[in-house]
């Protein structure tokens, strides 16, 4: 009942905002928080559909650091420059870029406050703010501890830190990778990371091993990963699943101890990926409705609790779509179309959205999950039959082609968004 009432108010409340602004000839102001996959896709599409609207993107980083392809940095496949994107491409496209960190959002007025104290007013707000890491969920873990035991689950300095620790480790060392309970950003990401760290070790430090302490039992593309590990890195990777107390509950950066409920292990390099939630900004504004992630209307990505505020990407509960950069970009494009339709007083035709998520087990060994999702008033659901993963037992030519497509996809999408 409550949700329906809110939804109803939301649908009504946002409309009067737009109409007077257009009638008076004033530019509609749309504030975008975050210049990542979701925010950049949304800003570009809205600017293309409504060139008259004043779209302002607020981003705290001076460049965007992509999580997709960051595991390749750890594996030595390419350098940090491959995942680092300057933001001036957005400016060249006619989108206003305001550097700064948003510290608060007032859903009632759709104004955001920056760390500088500045307030940015808007008629609509789009949040693509990503995740917050729940350091407190693991005893002894913290932002400071992550300088010794990197998470590298927000790319950039953390990626370089983990890469440097892997490079500094002596042959014969133990790399511990801790994986949290779902939901988390990029479901297959931890396992691609394990694969590409194994690639690096097999090449440079073959006596080393990887111990995976996993809160999950099963995982994304499990058969494909395990097939590749057996073929490429036999004996190097040991995984303790959640059902065997794999979940990491405590760490001690001073002694490099990593603890489960069952065992203590000593790591030479520790990659601790903690549990995750929607960004603190979104939760502090109440947009998660107490769920940890933000519920949204499936046809518009408008918050179910805050009219005129839209949430996309990892922070949102986007039906069955996974938390991936690819999903965020698709949601950004669809959300912009829905908002433009509303502003223009037109009906929005529900779309079919795609997520294709590649993983690399080695430079020439790729596989993927690919699904089409239908937007309906009832939710965003994967269309079946159809979709799914690369088949088990695929030949080397297929894996090489998928690895090549992964690189092609990454270069194509990133140049579209930030080029």
């Amino acid at each position, binding site marked *: 009942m409550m949700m329906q009432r809110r939804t109803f108010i939301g649908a009504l409340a946002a409309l009067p905002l737009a109409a007077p602004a*257009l009638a008076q000839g004033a530019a509609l102001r749309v504030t975008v928080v975050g210049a990542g996959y979701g925010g950049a896709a949304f800003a570009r*599409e809205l600017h*293309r*559909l*409504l*060139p*008259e609207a004043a779209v302002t993107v607020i981003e705290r980083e001076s460049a965007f650091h992509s999580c997709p392809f960051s595991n390749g940095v750890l594996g030595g496949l390419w350098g940090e420059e491959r995942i680092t994107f300057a933001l001036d491409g957005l400016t060249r*496209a006619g989108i206003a870029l305001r550097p700064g960190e948003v510290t608060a959002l007032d859903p009632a007025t759709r104004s955001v406050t920056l760390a500088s104290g500045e307030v940015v007013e808007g008629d609509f707000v789009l949040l693509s703010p990503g995740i917050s890491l729940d350091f407190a969920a693991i005893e002894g873990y913290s932002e400071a501890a992550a300088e010794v035991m990197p998470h590298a689950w927000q790319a950039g300095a953390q990626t370089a830190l983990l890469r440097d620790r892997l490079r500094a480790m002596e042959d014969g060392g133990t790399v511990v990778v801790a994986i949290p309970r779902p939901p988390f950003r990029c479901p297959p990401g931890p396992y691609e990371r394990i694969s590409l760290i194994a690639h690096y070790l097999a090449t440079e430090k073959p006596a080393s091993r990887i111990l995976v302490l996993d809160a999950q039992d099963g995982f994304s593309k499990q058969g494909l990963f395990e097939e590749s590990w057996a073929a490429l890195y036999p004996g190097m990777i040991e995984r303790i699943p959640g059902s065997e107390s794999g979940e990491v509950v405590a760490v001690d950066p001073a002694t490099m101890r990593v603890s489960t409920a069952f065992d203590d292990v000593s790591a030479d390099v520790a990659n601790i990926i903690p549990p995750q939630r929607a960004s603190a900004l979104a939760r502090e504004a109440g947009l998660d409705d107490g769920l940890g992630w933000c519920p949204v209307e499936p046809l518009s990505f408008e918050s179910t609790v805050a009219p005129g505020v839209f949430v996309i990407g990892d922070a949102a509960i986007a039906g069955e779509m996974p938390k991936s950069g*690819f999903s965020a*970009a*698709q949601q950004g*494009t*669809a959300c912009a*179309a829905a908002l*433009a*339709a509303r*502003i*223009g*007083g*037109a009906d*929005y*035709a529900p*779309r*079919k*959205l*795609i997520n*294709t998520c590649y993983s690399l087990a080695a430079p020439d060994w790729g596989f*993927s999950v*690919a*699904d*089409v999702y239908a937007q309906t008033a009832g939710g965003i659901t994967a*269309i079946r*039959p*159809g*979709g*799914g993963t*690369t088949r088990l037992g695929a030949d080397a030519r*297929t894996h090489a*082609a*998928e690895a*090549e*497509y992964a*690189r*092609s*996809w990454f*270069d*194509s*999408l990133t140049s*579209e968004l930030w080029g």
Partner: protein
Amino acid sequence: MPDTPRHHLSRIAGAALLALPLLAAAGPPATAEDAAQDAVATCLSCAGGGADGAALAAACFSCHGPEGRGSGTIPALAGEDEGELAQALTAYAAGEREGTIMPRLAPSYSSEEIAALAAWFAGVTP
């Protein structure tokens, strides 16, 4: 940014017509005048339940490049022959054509949607 049907429309149409490009034409127009005419025709065809080629195609850009003008290993679709595009998608959907990603994605589209996609990409200037 490349010129797109939506570009033309939103520049010439003004606020009153802003929503029209969203309703989208089956194939992209060559000129602004064509776009305006298409916009009117599009609304009529949408009322009849036609598949929206532009909206469907937008989901493909992430891999095939903006407006299907890809430059990497993944094939570009812009300006390809409409009949060949439709035939390829239909074969993928039926499991009769080899591939990596497309045999998994194509079955989720109806024959009407496949026709709209083929027409839209065929109409883009490469």
